[in-house]
């Protein structure tokens, strides 16, 4: 299966390599670099490459490439999913997945990789299990370790590995027992020039943070589960119960995890919280253009729209932008040609507006296409689909946990074509 793994940074240096079978020379990465150079954007590097003797499957995350070398047939998604899991684990351990952090903790990362794969086949990928075998570094622990010579490596087999609930370890104890659930919904939409919706859907995710003692068995039920059209669950959720009762029944992993992802059935009309009036034009004769964008609230369910932000990928020929926002601030990155207008809170009385001129490279032809606007926003305390958690029950333990549910609506891939 997975033969070797190389971690490559943005500029193309290999800074970590791990082989699960016999060693493969890092020259195999040259094929990858070739493809990388060909692609303009790192995102455009094909995830699967074929070389004379090997296959290279790579992912691009947090400005790092995770490149795995394969020799035989294996489902590509298997590898991709695993690589993402590696990235997730690193993120989980060190807070973020960056080159400098990995370099600082190279031994821990190496040990992790050793545990995660055996002979190229995934062995332990549950972060709970891993954390018992290799403890994540904390300042406290490193101090203690230097003083008394303790170890970061567990010497017994993690209990989770053997149980039927591998995601939870035994003997969890908290003084404050709490369970928080964040219902986060994202609106994916494409609006056309005139503001009509070409396509819109709502994707939601329930992120949970559960700190409960012992082996609690939770049941989360919804007021309106019918809204959910398609769902995917953390392995802890009992699918049978969902099918029969439309309630989530599970023994939660300890700490943060994604309980479920869902998709709201497209029959329900998706409410678009804001409208955008835009006018971007480039002049035929002179090397400049004009830009005028206004954003206003549409259906916000009585809540304020926050963290509003507009991102525009300008055509290559736009050299500079001279704009005035009535609210917030804007930046134009010359290298990437990205215009970002950070608005903040949307005030319905005084609609934010950005207008001004764009100057083009002299002599360059007028761009044929107007750039599309990507909109980011956030609405607190409301799930735009109307999904509501009705209650959370706990069985199996005696104490009373503190429970909380939070709703947030965000813009996902929200695009306005111009």
């Amino acid at each position, binding site marked *: 299966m997975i033969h070797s793994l190389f971690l490559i940074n943005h500029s193309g240096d290999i800074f970590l390599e791990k082989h699960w079978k016999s060693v493969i020379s890092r020259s195999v990465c040259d094929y990858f670099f070739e493809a990388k150079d060909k692609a303009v954007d790192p995102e*455009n590097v094909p*995830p699967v490459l074929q070389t004379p003797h090997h296959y290279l499957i790579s992912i691009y995350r947090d400005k790092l490439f995770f490149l795995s070398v394969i020799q035989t047939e294996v489902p590509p998604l298997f590898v991709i999913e695993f690589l993402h899991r590696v990235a997730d684990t690193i993120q989980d351990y060190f807070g973020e997945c960056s080159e400098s952090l990995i370099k600082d903790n190279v031994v821990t990362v190496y040990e992790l990789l050793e545990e995660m794969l*055996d002979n190229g086949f995934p062995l332990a990928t549950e972060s709970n299990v891993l954390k018992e075998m290799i403890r994540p570094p904390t300042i406290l622990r490193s101090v203690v370790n230097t003083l008394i010579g303790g170890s970061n490596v567990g010497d017994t*087999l993690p209990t989770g590995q*053997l149980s039927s609930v591998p995601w939870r370890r035994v003997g969890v104890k908290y003084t404050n027992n709490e369970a928080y659930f964040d219902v986060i919904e994202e609106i994916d939409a494409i609006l056309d020039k005139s503001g009509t919706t*070409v396509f819109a859907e709502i994707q939601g995710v329930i992120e949970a943070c559960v700190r409960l003692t012992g082996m609690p068995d939770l049941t989360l039920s919804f007021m309106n589960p019918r809204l959910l059209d398609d769902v995917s*669950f953390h392995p802890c959720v009992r699918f049978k119960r969902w099918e029969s009762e439309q309630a989530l029944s599970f023994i939660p992993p300890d700490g943060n995890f994604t309980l479920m992802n869902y998709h709201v059935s497209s029959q329900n009309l998706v409410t678009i919280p804001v409208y955008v009036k835009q006018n971007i034009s480039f002049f035929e004769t002179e090397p400049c253009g004009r830009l005028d964008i206004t954003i206003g609230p549409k259906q916000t369910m009585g809540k304020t729209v926050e963290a509003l932000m507009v991102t525009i990928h300008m055509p290559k020929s736009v050299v500079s932008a001279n704009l005035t926002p009535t609210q917030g601030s804007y930046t134009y990155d010359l290298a990437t040609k990205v215009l970002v207008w950070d608005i903040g809170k949307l005030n319905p009385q005084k609609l934010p507006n950005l207008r001004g001129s764009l100057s083009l490279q002299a002599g360059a032809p007028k761009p044929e296409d107007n750039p599309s606007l990507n909109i980011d926003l956030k609405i607190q305390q409301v799930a735009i689909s109307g999904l509501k958690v009705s209650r959370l029950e706990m069985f199996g333990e005696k104490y009373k946990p503190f429970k909380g549910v939070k709703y947030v609506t965000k813009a996902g891939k929200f695009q306005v074509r111009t």
Partner: protein
Amino acid sequence: MLDSNKDSLKLEAMKRIVAMIARGKNASDLFPAVVKNVACKNIEVKKLVYVYLVRYAEEQQDLALLSISTFQRGLKDPNQLIRASALRVLSSIRVTIIVPIMMLAIKEAASDMSPYVRKTAAHAIPKLYSLDPEQKDQLIEVIEKLLADKTTLVAGSVVMAFEEVCPERIELIHKNYRKLCNLLIDVEEWGQVVIINMLTRYARTQFLNPNMNESLLEEGNDKAFYGSDDDEDEEEDEKDKKAEAPAMAKRKPYVMDPDHRLLLRNTKPLLQSRNAAVVMAVAQLYFHLAPKAEVGVIAKALVRLLRSHSEVQYVVLQNVATMTIKRRGMFEPYLKSFYIRSTDPTQIKVLKLEVLTNLANETNISTILREFQTYIKSMDKDFVAATIQAIGRCATNIGEVRDTCLNGLVQLLSNRDELVVAESVVVIKKLLQMQPEKHSDIIKHMAKLTDNIQVPMARASILWLIGEYCEHVPKIAPDVLRKMAKSFTNEEDIVKLQIINLAAKLYLTNSKQTKLLTQYVLNLAKYDQNYDIRDRARFIRQLIVPTEKSGALSKYAKKLFLALKPAPILESPFKDRDHFQLGSLSHLLNAKAGGYQELPDWPEAAPDPSVRNVEVPEWTKCSSREKRKEKKVEKPFYSDSEGESGPTESADSESDSASGLESGSGIEESGSGSESEESEEGSESEEEEEEEEKDKKKKKKELKKPVQESESEQSSEEEVRKHERKNKQRKSDSESESDEEDDSESESSRSESEDSESETEVKKKKKAAESKPPSKPVKKEKKEMSLLDLDDFEPAPSPQVTPVNTFLSSSLVTDLEGLSLSDTVLSPATTSPCSALKSYELLHRITGEGLCVEYCFSRQPFSPDGNMVAVQMQVTNNSTSDTKNLHMEDVKLQSGMRVKEFPEIELLPAGESATAVMGIDFCDSTQAANFQLCTHTRKFFVSIQPPVGELMRPVFLTENEFKKEQGQLMGMNEITEKLTLDAKCRNEHAIVQSVITAANLSRVPCGSDRECSPPVPPPALPVHRFAGRTVTSGSLVLATVASKEEGAAQLTVNCEKMVIGTMLVKDILLALTQ
């Protein structure tokens, strides 16, 4: 530092070394120093030493041997983690000398107590295999052993080993097939992927194609698909196909193998997995194995994956693209999910475009084209080019939009971007080839473009077009040639070739104008640097320019050059990809990757399904159907009385989790899981039942009834009966083949049961049971049993006698005595039971001045007119004087209703009472019949309103008939209501009585429903069925009461007349809940 005594220093040193390794620096010269520390006590140092060893052992084999003894010691360690990691490292150091040691270690670990160590052993198998392939046979033995392992932990790893070592030994899977299917949901996600992929292959060899009936229709399509499956023996394959076609026709009624169904059913929930690889694996399984109608379920899940990381999207879209070619309908509802965003990476855009193109059809083409229009303006030029290609494909596939597309593309010709123009030219060229006559103006337009377009491919395309259709543009063509001749030397090679072609074609059609030009071009070409062009020039000169020795060929030159060329077919690059297993690397690359296992073709005839039989009674699939049925009967029986009957598959998973419980995990989950599994099993068996023929049904009923009975009896009796049953079963078993096996199974299952009943006791009872004459004729037995079982509800042989007849209590009989005297119409025998029924007051004593009339619905057929409901009236004269000439008058009815009056009662002495019967045709409505009751002195206005339950007469249906009829009365005609049964009427008897009191229906004898209820005590929760017809129109009325735990029940009424149905539901509900 490594030589230091302090662990902390050693650790520090090792960390630095490992960091070096991680960065890819060579640390091999430290080998001797590191190896010394392999026995270090500090576990972290040890681990890092392991890491080092695994990395460099291959290079320093001799020194590595020093460490082996440490691992061997580690293999005996009481700590399972240490055992496992010792095995891991031992198997990971690739030193050929230690192969025998490894082999031994693996064998030992394969029977280790700890599943974790066994898992590690499974991992070690492919390692050893790659080191020394000669160990294959021995390794297969270990694999076989581990495949039989029942823990979820091991399952994934061992299947992985199986796939790497001996994927061709498919027969090893047989015995474990069902276990794997059932464990699947609990296996860790990576294992799931591997198992699903393996099972897909397995199923392809063991089951029949579920689509074979449909595939007859699209034979041509499928043939191409299958034909390409096996490159080597394609011919043979083709032959097979031909042989298969008639065979398929013969085998029309396809019945899916239950094991096939099991696989599909158990994988379906995994579509909800968070792991994209699992979802994809299930999706490909469904795509390759499921009947057409069921494949659709995967679409939603795959569309969901499109929200994931772009790499995942990339792979999923590739697969979706392949699927959309074969099964377009599946993804049509999700069309909009494939719309492209400007922020998508180019490769994703192109793939989405591919999917959109595949999905295009007559109905959605306009929306798709509108989308394409926005895409064309995109800044990403590669993507724009792909869009143009896509438009071209849409245009070829859908004739209606061809002109629109063409016009759109022509407009693009004036685009400023050259790439766009070039791409459009190429596509237009292809489109024009299909119908050139109509579009000479487009060709003209394109001819003008030659001045501007620089992209060689586009120039070449234009030239080819002009040459090909020079007859349509006779004036322009020579001019173009002139221009081209001028610039010939500066053109690219492909353009030059096309210029030569153009010249040749023009020379043939219009030699007057172009002779010199052609000569000139050919001369230029003669001295070109490129040999292709020189060759071409020479060839064409010989062919077209008439010389004295020109051969026969030149006569045909025109034919050669200007022959009609077939239009190219624009097809998807994903067209032939589906011969690779979807989701595989080979599919993605469209090339066979190393180690790719071909997806086998469906077998022509199903291999013997019995190979999957495992030695457990419940799941054994028998060769003869009859035997299977008996087993089914047996199943709830055992599981009722003995908590853990045989080692069923679900029990497997239970025991499995029990082993997991060592560490104190949740029983509940796995427990509930296996429970529902079982109930599912039951519902499946119900499905099967429906297919079965009647006579078999009957037989089953015979077998069924005793079971019912045993439930109603007390437990002690039940025990005895159980053995009685067993005897009987054994008897019938002896007819079938594998008697002995079965016998031993039941033995074993008993011995395994944890029930307190001791072995000896059992034997005693068995003996007692055996002493009963086993030769008792089955039929007789049946009668007895059914009498016991259904006591008073035994359905009457004919509808003439209602079931009510039988349950008369003695007190009622006495009540009746005075009534049935003066009835002239009906015989006393048949009228007698009526007062079991509710009677209603027609005329109160006071308003009637002493005359009291009560009526009831006798539920007898009203013999003068079958469409009438018989109403029996009891007239009592409470007054002091006689009443004379009692009769009916002035009947007021709703249209359609009719009344047959009762004969006049001439004299009713004071204190006496009399009975009269009248018939009313209520026309299946609950409208009241109003009339006057007249005596010799007075008239009373009275009315009779029937409860809806009286508007029907019972009919006798068998269960099968009932189900069939019910199936036809679904939808609007079905009314379902949930209710909680009153505490008093939870037993069977009470339910039946209440329903029958509320409505004039007859009970449908039933039995087999008990099977589908979960085998938990209370043993069986019966379903009661009742049937009747409305009196006037004869529409069927079907009522079902399905009771559940704790008094909950569900009432279903199916009736063509919805009003009656609704009212009936209310009435029965009232009766049941009181």
